């Protein structure tokens, strides 16, 4: 266990470090003047002296390595800077919104995993059958649909035409506080759309892995022992096919994060994705950089967790280590 954690950390720390350098360089190369951004509309009425004052305060004109180390030092101390697009400390913005994004991604991941394991296994069980062909055709079709288009279609049908679900937001217009049923009702469409758009890759992977597993010796032997079909399928074929799947879930997470940015935007959810779009429109380097770094850290942590899950699930790794 400890070895797995150590190995992952040995990768994660340089990755975060390299990402921070890369982003800082991009930010430095940007034609955007942070002082102008900070001042906002006031910049036009502000004197050059005042702007210079802001620049001096921030050390914008210091040499790049100095600026980078100062920024990194602040980051490490938990000071993520000032968001020029939201006029708020970056830490506050993230603290307010990260929860909703994690909720959206977490529920979606749970839905995708359960659904794709079930659908993929059943498709593999009756390879070439009606269900298998249906699932595969649907997967290829959905893979060709941009998630935001899918989201707009879902809004058009289920929110506007049928009126079953709200078209956006997290709470009703008149609601003064967040209540669980209200939020759940608002999350149905975004979660479904994100889950469906992410599902093809997972379903096809499970299907192929289980189909292959079904042809292996240990599954034939399990059938030869007279075990029930369900036991053979889930207890033996899926059980062994699951192992490679676990590690691949981790590598697929960045795509899920990208999808959540788009879904949050379409459904006006108050998460990190939507706010990062606003930050991008406003050239808000501190907020964007912080969101990208935090997301990267979360993805790396999730990779570590899937590794640990793999270690727990595979006795060969657990025992031989």
């Amino acid at each position, binding site marked *: 266990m400890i070895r797995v954690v150590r190995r992952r950390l040995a990768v994660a720390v340089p990755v975060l470090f390299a990402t921070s350098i890369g982003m800082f360089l991009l930010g430095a190369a940007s034609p955007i003047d942070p002082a102008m951004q900070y001042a906002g509309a006031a910049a036009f009425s502000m004197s050059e002296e005042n702007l210079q004052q802001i620049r001096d305060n921030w050390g914008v004109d210091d040499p790049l390595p100095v600026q980078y180390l100062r920024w990194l030092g602040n980051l490490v101390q938990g000071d993520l800077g000032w968001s020029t697009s939201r006029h708020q400390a970056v830490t506050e913005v993230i603290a307010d919104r990260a929860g909703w994004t994690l909720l959206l991604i977490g529920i979606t991941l749970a839905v995708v995993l359960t659904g794709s394991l079930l659908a993929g296994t059943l498709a593999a069980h009756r390879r070439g059958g009606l269900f298998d062909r249906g699932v595969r055709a649907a997967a290829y079709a959905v893979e060709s649909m941009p998630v935001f288009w899918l989201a707009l279609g879902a809004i058009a049908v289920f929110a506007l035409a049928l009126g079953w679900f709200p078209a956006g937001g997290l709470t009703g217009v008149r609601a003064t506080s967040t209540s669980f049923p209200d939020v759940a009702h608002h999350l149905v469409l975004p979660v479904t759309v994100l889950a469906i758009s992410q599902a093809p890759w997972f379903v096809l992977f499970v299907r192929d892995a289980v189909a292959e597993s079904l*042809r*292996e*010796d*240990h599954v*034939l*032997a*399990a*059938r*030869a*022992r*007279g*075990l*029930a*079909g369900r*036991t053979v399928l889930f*207890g*033996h074929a899926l*059980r*062994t096919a699951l*192992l490679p799947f676990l590690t691949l879930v981790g590598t697929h997470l960045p795509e899920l994060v990208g999808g959540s940015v788009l879904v949050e935007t379409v459904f006006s959810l108050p998460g990190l994705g939507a706010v990062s779009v606003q930050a991008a429109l406003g050239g808000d380097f501190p907020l964007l950089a912080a969101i990208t770094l935090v997301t990267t850290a979360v993805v790396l942590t999730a990779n570590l967790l899937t590794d640990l899950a793999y270690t727990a*699930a*595979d*006795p*060969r790794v657990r*025992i031989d280590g």
Partner: protein
Amino acid sequence: MNPLLTVSGLTVRFQLRDAVVAAVTGLDLTVRPGELLAVVGESGCGKSVLAHALLGLLPANAAVSGKALLTRAVGPPGPVDLLACGEKTLAREIRGRRIGLIPQSPATALTVVRRGRRLLAETLRAHRRDPGLADQVAREAGLDPADLERYPFELSGGMAQRLATALALAGEPPLLIADEPTGGLDRPLVDHTLDLLRRRCDDGAAVLLITHDLAAAERVADTVAVMYAGRIVEHRPARELFSAPAHPYSRGLLDALPDREFRAVAGHPPMLTALPRGCAFAARCDRVSGACAIQPAGPVACHHPLTTAEAPA
């Protein structure tokens, strides 16, 4: 005694992309309770296909014909045809309950992520037996119950073999098929496995031993069926066959034994995708004549069988 299993005219073909594999052709055999029948032949002659065909475990590109009648213990009177009864009957009535299979290469036949005890308990439960019997069944198969706590990858070849045997015995099947149970084991383990199979027969079960190891067959078999290129070429009581083989191929196999002439049969078996017309052994046979262009039939499938005088002592 009435036969437990009667196979007649079993034929198995595999459809490949651009070829047809004639894995088994017109195979007849019977097994009686208490009998140990050894099916012997070089690897790739269709022996394992026979086991999988009887249990309905062949891949989807296989085409099977013929009959394989197995007497039932319960249910409707009369035997059940294994090749026609369908997946449901096979899964619920036959596999593990009426026919137990000790698979070839037990190491890959065990689900690696689950401990022996869980595999055995699960199988006992599937056969409506008390999972607490696991220790007893393991002992019957010669496996130390303590080894049930291990994962399959922690077991030695011999231990995996015994666990696979225990799993096959869990449903107390009256017919046990052992597919190359001695492969990869050293001599003491081979003898142990064979003696275990022999004991099952002596207790009234029937055993179909599929092996390329003639010495193993000689040690325990009551009856021997020699297979060549998907057909049975000689099917006789073991004592007769080992003292006076009638088919030139049988004699060749016997000559290859270390305690006889230790000389392998010259040449190679034919490709199962391109079998010759007539006797498939003709190309390797020193007694070949024009008659061999026609497929021979009978318990000794040869136009020029050896006489007792010609056979090695």
